[in-house]
């Protein structure tokens, strides 16, 4: 059944509180350490106990970009799970690992691996939540995987006693399957190309956190908000080792104003939130722009409007972040599509913010934020750049002026405490020294000064991959998309194969918009052969194409039920 480059998908389903995500992570890492490529993702509703949730893992010997609809192996932690996912199971070939008592009439068409999980728990005096360890062991046995890798992951993850308890349960599941279902055993290949120890299993949120750390983040303030919270949790955990300050203040209003204070004082700072929290940051975003204070804001999208569906995914906030806050000012908006890009963008967003003294927004989404990839370790692509910062002594001949009008619009940026410089920042329109001004000519110069940075940015952009193009060099059709949809689209294109001649244009820089590059790529095909795929209802990237390229893409696949598209849906769209 399992061959090279094919994908195999595992899904663990159960209730909130069943430890689905923890065991999903364990299993993902287990496959990763065996040398396989892994992509994992989850779905859950915004409650703490009860309610169905699942974690799916797709593995392959080649890189995996997204999850699949079809499930090869299902771990069902209760009786409902197979029923809920029945359409995703393949008769005859799909396996279901389930407790003996939870078997039912309705699943007889599938390969059932039933175990007396509750009996084993009782024997071992283990808590109910631990039955997923039995199931993991059973699964590892079933796919003839090396149980010692699973053991190692347990040991890495938990304290010794907890790890051992889980391992012993896993072994019971493992042995049970080897004994009772020898005829069913399926072999999953181990890849040998990749040294096992060099890989990490990383979510989009973690990749952003790492990029920020690598870029010198020293002050992080955020108010929890799904699906951005795991950045806070991850950084909070790391604060000791990395000596960074991590604060959870009273609100998003406080969070963004704190990081503005930190950046004004010379410290690289960041916050992260989702749309609702970003709404509360809107006013301070303009403050940072007017006062020319470099901040990095991560916005992880979920379906709106308002509270919407907190634990689902969406790309509905693009226009919002592009235009948030009163007045006009340059900003940078970057949308990563996978952990590598998330790392790199987080890394260089600080360089951009500090060199150009403006706010940078990283626009992510739940599907990227909470999905996990097996990745190579990230390496910063270029050094840390600070631009015109003055950290110790100001040596200028004239009095220091925070908003000095320079050729390129960027003023020397002394921080408070610098010798010979008194630094005055202002949210009002101001003169060079930072005093309020109403003089029309001066106002014009100051507005122009800020906008000059846009010119600089047009040049700076050339250093970065503001778009990416994948697929055929002479395509017949081009898909345009952004953010986390990159994964499912790449999967779909891979499945369709080369001779379909499909190209895929991923837009990464949303502002400044890489108009010419996009135009250039799209000129490869006729207007009717361009297609857009987005996780929103109105086609927000398409609205940018309308605005910047005067192109209204007619063929659209817009999904707005909170779920990312599956590769098969994309294929259906492409073919339909």
């Amino acid at each position, binding site marked *: 059944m399992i061959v090279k480059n094919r994908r195999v998908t595992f899904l663990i389903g159960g209730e909130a509180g069943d430890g689905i995500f923890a065991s999903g992570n364990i299993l993902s*890492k287990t496959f990763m350490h065996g040398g396989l490529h892994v992509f994992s993702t989850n779905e859950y509703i915004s409650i703490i106990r009860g309610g169905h949730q699942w974690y799916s893992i797709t593995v392959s010997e080649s890189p995996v970009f997204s999850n699949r609809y079809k499930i090869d192996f299902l771990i069902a932690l209760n009786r409902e799970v197979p029923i809920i996912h029945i359409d995703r199971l393949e008769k005859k070939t799909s396996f279901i690992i389930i407790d003996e008592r939870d078997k039912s009439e309705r699943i007889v068409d599938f390969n059932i691996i039933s175990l007396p999980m509750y009996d084993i728990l009782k024997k071992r005096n283990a808590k109910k939540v631990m039955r997923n360890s039995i199931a993991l062991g059973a699964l590892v046995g079933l796919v003839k995987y090396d149980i010692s890798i699973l053991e190692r992951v347990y040991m*890495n993850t938990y304290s010794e006693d907890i790890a051992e308890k889980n391992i012993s349960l896993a072994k019971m599941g493992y042995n049970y399957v080897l004994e009772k279902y020898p005829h069913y055993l399926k072999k999953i290949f181990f890849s040998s190309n990749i040294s096992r*120890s060099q*890989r*990490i*299993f*990383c979510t989009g949120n*973690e990749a952003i956190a*790492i990029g920020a*750390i690598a870029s*010198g983040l*020293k*002050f992080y*303030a955020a108010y929890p908000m799904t699906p951005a919270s795991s950045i806070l949790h991850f950084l909070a*955990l*790391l*604060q000791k*080792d*990395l*000596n960074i*300050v991590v*604060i959870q*203040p*009273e609100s998003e*209003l*406080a*969070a963004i*104003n*704190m*990081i*503005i*204070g*930190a*950046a*004004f*004082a*010379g*410290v690289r*700072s960041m916050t992260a939130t989702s749309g609702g929290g970003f709404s509360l940051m809107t006013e*301070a975003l303009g*403050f940072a722009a007017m006062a020319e204070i470099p901040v990095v804001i991560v916005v992880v999208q979920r379906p709106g409007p308002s509270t919407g569906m907190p634990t689902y995914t969406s790309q509905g906030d693009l226009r919002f972040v592009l235009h948030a806050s009163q007045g006009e000012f340059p900003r940078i908006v970057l949308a990563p599509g996978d952990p590598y890009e998330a790392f790199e963008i987080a890394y260089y967003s600080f360089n951009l913010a500090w060199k150009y003294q403006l706010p940078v927004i990283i626009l992510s989404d739940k599907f990227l934020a909470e999905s996990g990839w097996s990745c190579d*370790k*990230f390496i910063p692509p270029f050094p*840390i750049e600070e631009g015109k910062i003055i*950290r110790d002594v100001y040596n200028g001949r004239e009095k220091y002026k925070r908003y000095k009008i320079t050729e390129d619009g960027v003023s020397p940026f002394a*921080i*408070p*405490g*610098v*010798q*010979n410089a*008194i*630094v*005055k*920042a*202002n*949210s009002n329109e101001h003169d060079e020294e*930072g*005093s*309020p001004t109403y003089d029309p000519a001066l106002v014009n110069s100051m507005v122009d000064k800020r906008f000059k940075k846009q010119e600089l940015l047009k040049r700076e952009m050339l250093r970065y991959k503001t778009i990416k193009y994948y697929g055929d060099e002479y395509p017949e059709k081009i898909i345009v998309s952004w953010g986390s949809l990159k994964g499912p689209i790449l999967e779909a294109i891979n499945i369709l194969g080369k001779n379909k001649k499909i190209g895929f244009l991923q837009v990464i820089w949303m502002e400044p918009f890489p108009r010419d590059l996009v135009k250039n790529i799209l000129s490869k095909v006729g207007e009717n052969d361009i297609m857009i795929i987005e996780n929103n209802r109105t086609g927000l990237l398409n609205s940018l194409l309308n605005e910047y390229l005067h192109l209204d893409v007619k063929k659209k696949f817009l999904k707005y039920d909170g779920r990312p598209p599956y590769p098969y849906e994309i294929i259906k769209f492409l073919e339909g």
Partner: protein
Amino acid sequence: MGSIYLTNKKNVWCPGCGNFAILNALIKALERLNLKPESVVLVSGIGCHGRINQYVNVNSIHVIHGRVLPVATGIKISNNRLTVIGHAGDGDAYAIGLGHLPHAARRNVDLTYIIHNNMIFGLTTGQVTPTTPKGMRTRSTPYGNIENPLNPLLLALVSGATFVARGFAGDIKHLIYLFEEGIKHKGFAFIDVLQPCVTFYNTYSYFRERVYRLEETDYDYTSFKKAIAKATEWGERIPIGIFYKIRRETFEEQLFQLKDKPLVQQEIRINLEKVYKILS
């Protein structure tokens, strides 16, 4: 005056405004403390009070309405060698920005927070604020304010502020003393200043007749209970002075990250291996 702490900017407050006393007292306090201008940061809100930044020759940031405290907190934590002083109006601090006050107080970041409490929105031409007396007619309450005013001192006290004081812009000598003590205090120092607004709410004579200095009584500012009782006193006699002062570990003192040196001075030497270990 010719103080090194004064800029040469033209002052635009109304002649006679209580803000002048606050400005002068601040300058004097800075002089007495002999702080280097480069080592001080003023953080001011939006309102007439917010202009103070322009007149004081130290670092400053004029923030958005109500956000003095979070900005000041971010600055102080990033560079705890700086002296950070917040200036807010009563609208700024007690209306739109009130949500930050109890948190700053319980956190006990080493800041001085000076409220220019003129009991009115000055800059927006005279509307009601949370400290406007009941019954008062303002542009937004032409038939009289029906809300009970807040008692900011009580609020600061019960939130955990470690230095709580009230000043009066009509008593500049005392104000200098309060500012000096507030700035010297290690921890969150809250100073509410009764500031007459000659244009929209001139309270000079009202307060002059009523205020008395706690320092001229045998009041003991180390008792929380007494502070609460004192802070409730408001009527024929209105106390000014230090109501409460204790030493409690500051937020920064509890941050292991700042043990060696301020955040801003720490080199960026990142060892990602520690991070990667968690992810493998």
